[in-house]
């Protein structure tokens, strides 16, 4: 009897595991019938950190050829090659595959991406924004450097586990406009909670690497990849530490803080390869939103 129960349990477990591995994720691929704008797409790629994370600046490597290591508690990931190389980059992708990868975190083969890729924030992108990004990525010269395989530790190297992760932790970004707030404020919200994915570093993560959005939004993290720390950036903390919207917008342009320090670490990268290229209006929008009370996640 006991034996039979055990056998039944094992069979159920094996069937569920097989089911989990075969469980399809992501929406069906549907082509977007939209013409993208290269300049707008390149700008969005800056805002979103594509260039910062997928370019190995320290080694002087080609733009968007990947290879930047991300040391997480679950193992090491390397940002993949996003150039138009058909074999090693995304040159063989369709626009629909690109859209699903960016907004849903699902690879052309149907695998789930690790949440180190902040697709959960990019879920807020409109079809037009995806078409713009796609158009911009088409202008990147091919680089035939293979993407470096990830080195995750067990059980995190089992990709099917990410399907469970998605089912439990994946939430839509909170970018919807808030009535009664200014246009700049709502633009800031769209950037901060969406494309610029500030919470990816400034919100602590739980045992499974999911952000504690409901309880610790923007409260900072002391366990960033590579052993770095990020400060809290809720509006009260920022105010207490001497920031205002103008000084924050200025720091996002120059990297210089009101106390005379200059950003380093990943915030230095964010400014050098990202926010220093934005319009003054967008930096002010980001600062306006961050310095005001808001519900985010």
């Amino acid at each position, binding site marked *: 009897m006991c034996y039979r129960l055990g056998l039944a349990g094992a069979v159920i477990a094996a069937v569920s595991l097989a089911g989990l591995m075969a469980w399809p994720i992501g929406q069906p691929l549907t082509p977007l019938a939209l013409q993208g704008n290269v300049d707008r797409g*390149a700008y969005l790629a800056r805002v979103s950190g594509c260039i910062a994370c997928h370019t190995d*600046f*320290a080694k002087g490597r080609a733009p968007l050829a990947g290879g930047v290591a991300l040391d997480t508690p679950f193992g090491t990931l390397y940002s993949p090659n996003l150039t138009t190389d058909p074999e090693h980059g995304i040159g063989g992708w369709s626009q629909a595959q690109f859209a699903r990868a960016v907004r849903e975190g699902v690879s052309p083969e149907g695998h789930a991406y690790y949440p180190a890729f902040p697709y959960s924030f990019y879920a807020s992108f409109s079809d037009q924004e995806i078409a713009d990004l796609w158009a911009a990525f088409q202008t990147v010269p091919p680089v035939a450097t293979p993407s470096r395989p990830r080195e995750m530790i067990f059980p995190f190297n089992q990709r099917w586990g990410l399907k469970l992760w998605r089912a439990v932790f994946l939430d839509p970004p909170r970018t919807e406009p808030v009535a009664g707030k200014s246009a700049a404020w709502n633009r800031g919200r769209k950037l901060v909670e969406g494309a610029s994915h500030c919470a990816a570093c400034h919100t602590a993560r739980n045992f499974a690497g999911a952000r504690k959005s409901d309880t610790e939004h923007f409260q900072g993290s002391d366990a960033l990849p590579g052993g*770095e720390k990020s400060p809290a950036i809720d509006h009260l903390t920022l105010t207490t530490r001497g920031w205002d919207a103008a000084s924050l917008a200025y720091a996002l342009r*120059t990297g210089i803080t009101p106390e005379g320090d200059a950003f380093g670490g990943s915030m230095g990268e964010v400014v050098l*390869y990202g926010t*220093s*290229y934005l319009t003054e209006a967008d930096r002010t929008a980001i600062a306006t939103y961050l310095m005001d009370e808001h519900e985010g996640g």
Partner: protein
Amino acid sequence: MKTERLFLGAVVASVLAVINQSVFAHGGATGVVKERMDGMGVMKEAMRVLTPMMRGQVDYDAAVVRERSEDISRHAGEALTRLFPEGSLDAPSEAKPEIWQDWDAFSAMAEKLRVTADGLAEASENGLEMSGEAPAVGGIMGDQGGSMMGGGMMGIGAGSDMMDLSQMPADGVFTMMGQVCSACHTRFRVEK
């Protein structure tokens, strides 16, 4: 006899106090680590004074700009790199060991800091432009590497060697200098 001892005691106490202050400033740093952290402190103080001026929040004072950028120049270049002997990572140093794996990049940035600080001193009379848009590194698409093609030259104000900094608005030079600080911290400073 008694007064002598008291006097001696006072001397010892004050010597200890002085040692204490100099040794334990910067959370216990000593030697070369303390020296460079103090130097960074001088530069940070200069930046703290100059930043509101460059943002137009307080009145622009060319003499102060010259003086403070000279402070920075004095602690940049060779003066900075000589305080980073190989492997000097004693607590509470915030230096990354990558400094010695990529010494050329590190010393190039230190030198760039000196060049831009000297440039700012020379540009101090030029005053502010306050354009706000597009830093020295380039725009969004196409020009000077500001496109999908990544940032120019590791994010350090591209081509500052070729430009005549003394002819630029002071806030433009100041931004370039700040980008050098940030680029170096990004690669070579531990964020605690």
